[in-house]
């Protein structure tokens, strides 16, 4: 695997749109070409090299290309958008939309990410060592088909509306999760190892949500039974879980909520 190292220079307050930072666009390009990829700073069309020192070498193939970003890029949006292959490692915190519409490859963020990470993700792996903002692995506005595949792992906490309109894939959160986890979910799996205050699975019609910590369950969920060490979508869980079906505000809902007891 070949590595391209991006070291952030001083980043402007207006925020950057950097959807060009992806192995698919870096592969087969010289350092100079990469440095001249388009980045928006507010309404200014700028070059990647204006904001990042670019070093290393890219492979001909995206799948052999790793991008390492040295430091915080909390003002930078859309890093890794649409990534199909290869790897991105952000050695700090990142801005909004990390891994938006990602289809393959792997993105690792050592710090936190802002909202909309993994929006409408279809495949690949998104690992966040810190916390995630709202709308993690969620659908874009109006889309009734959100995350369709792939895996998102958050080692810290996640915000509200995680997995909105999820129709496939897995989201695992080691910490706590905000309200409305899995709202409108149709398929797929969300595992929350910490607590989530309330309204998990609101308006879900399918899929599964596991909550290990505390949560208030909506009155429109119905208790089903207790399950020991259940296996859901290939995930083996340890312990005893009270299961609920819902959300019965909907007609014919087949969502399942697993609450650790």
């Amino acid at each position, binding site marked *: 695997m070949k590595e391209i190292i991006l070291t952030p220079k001083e980043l402007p307050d207006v925020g950057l749109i950097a959807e060009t930072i992806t192995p698919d666009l870096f592969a087969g390009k010289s350092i100079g070409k990469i440095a001249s990829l388009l980045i928006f700073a507010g309404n200014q069309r700028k070059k990647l090299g204006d904001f990042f020192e670019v070093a290393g070498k890219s492979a001909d193939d995206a799948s052999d290309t790793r991008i390492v970003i040295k430091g915080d890029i909390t003002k930078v949006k859309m890093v890794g958008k649409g990534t199909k292959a290869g790897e991105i490692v952000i050695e700090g915190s990142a801005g909004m939309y990390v891994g938006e519409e990602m289809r393959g490859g792997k993105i690792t963020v050592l710090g936190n990410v802002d909202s909309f990470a993994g929006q409408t993700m279809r495949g690949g792996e998104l690992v966040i060592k810190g916390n995630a903002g709202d709308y993690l692995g969620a*659908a*874009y*506005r*109006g*889309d*009734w088909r959100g995350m369709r595949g792939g895996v998102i792992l958050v080692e810290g906490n996640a915000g509200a509306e995680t997995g909105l309109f999820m129709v496939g894939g897995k989201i695992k959160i080691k910490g706590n999760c905000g309200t409305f986890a899995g709202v409108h979910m149709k398929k797929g799996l969300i595992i929350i190892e910490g607590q989530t205050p309330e309204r998990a699975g609101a308006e879900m019609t399918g899929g599964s949500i596991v909550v290990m910590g505390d949560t208030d369950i909506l009155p429109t969920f119905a208790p089903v039974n207790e399950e020991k060490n259940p296996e859901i979508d290939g995930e083996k869980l340890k312990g005893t879980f009270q299961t609920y079906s819902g959300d019965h505000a909907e007609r014919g809902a087949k969502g399942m909520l697993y609450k650790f007891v």
Partner: protein
Amino acid sequence: MASLIIKNGTVYDPANNVNGEKMDIYIKDGKIVEKAARGAKKIDCNGKIIMPGGVEIHSHIAGGKVNSGRLLRPEDHKKLVMPKTKLTRSGSGFSTPSTFMTGYLYSKLGYTTAMTPAMPPLMARHTHEELNDIPMLDKGSYPLTDGNWFIMRYLKDGDIEKAAAYAAWLLRSTKGFALKITNPGGTEAWGWGKNCKSLDDPVPYFDITPREIIKGLAEVNEMLGLPHSIHLQANNLGRLGNYETTIDTIKVPSGTKNKDRQTLHLTHVQFHSYGGDSWKNFESEAETVAKAVNKTDNAIIDTGNVTLDNTTTMTADGPMEYYLQSLTHFKWMNRDVELETAPGITPFIYSPKMSTAAIQWAIGLELGLLIKDPWKVLMTTDHPNGGPFTRYPRIISWLMSRPARDEMLEKVNAAAGKRSSLASIDREYDFNDIATVTRAGQARSLGLSETKGHLGIGAHGDVAVYDIDPDNMDPSKDFKGIEKAFSAAAYTIKGGEVLVRDGEIVKVTYGNTYWTNPHVDKSLEKEVLSDIEYNFKRYYSVNLANYPVQDKYVKNPIELKIDAQKVGA
């Protein structure tokens, strides 16, 4: 205004019986003329084909319902965007493009005129505001009259003259071009969550049937002498077995005649040619419907082709949209309009893997190919209902090439081949047919064939040039090339000005808005007006004085004054 000589192209101008002749076209002061003007600019079109500018008779591009569709679908807009350029405004939207973008996209296809077919009268101001923001095209809009309380009452009372006077007032008040009827009666029934399920199913509380509404309005239309015939979306759109209603509907106004054109324009008939009694045995009845159209001498249709896309359905047929969303469980908008009509909107994904969608795709093409006279079958997608108008080039390639259709039949659900006759049809359109179904026929149906849809002397200088060398291209074989050429006009010329070159916008203009203004007998008009006043106060939510569209809302209007004084005299 610039003068032009369009040289050396191969011209297809079916209205003037010019079928693939090499000839030059001259434009002066925005019109086609006989002789080249002094100092005219030359455009060499050697190895290219020339047609009149495209004319669109039915495309939902402006108004409250279209805008609700836009509001509903941010995820659609994200799929297709146009950045601002030095010349053009920005925009977004694949199935429901924003206004500026709509004009640019049509122009790139070689279109110069487009009508938006379904304007709730109460919302007419909105439709015109949007039309004003659509560049590149001449435009117009059809006020909806399907569930109109005045119309229904007058017709029920047998007061056809009053109905006509009211319709005249409505056209004037809305600055509308033609009378649109969508699911007659059904839209009023939808006020109670009900529908009219056959031509003889009475409208709740109004004691009138869809058949009576259609027949009455067809008579009204011809009494007023409007340029276009009634423009009808039949009852039971999208329902299983609806072809029977469709065939029945074709016969309804058969007693009403017009010497220049049809007296019934039946729209997006693909959606009305369904057989079967469950979605499992859903099948095409296009052959039966085509036969009925072949036989009639006073009805023509447009197709409403399905293009197998993720699109947005929007019609004034509220109960239909409700029914559709109850099948898909997709998001759904409903927009009932007091005393008038009931638009609805819901997204739809015509997946080629789905048997129904594949059959719908086949039906649209069957209609085009089985109706013998191309003047009687106009090409539309009922944009965006069957798919966005930007797919026209693809439909053209399907119509022109059996191999193109065969290739599709291989790809889509096998039901398309089995439950329609498409696989057995050899017919391939030629360029003359294409020019007929996309321009000449549309202009004639609209009653605008004096100036539009042809290249004869006196016609508007609206011309489309495509990069196709008819001597060296076989559309049947090179259907991909056909699609490509029709996607990006080599030139789109409007009023003698080059707006598009090589598929790129080179000039932005704003066209005219056409509206019709029939005048009936003064005393009859007065009588009807006092009736309108009485009912407005009681039942509308706005004051009568605030209802008619003020002149300032129509940019570049062309008012077609019609003397209908004999009505009521």
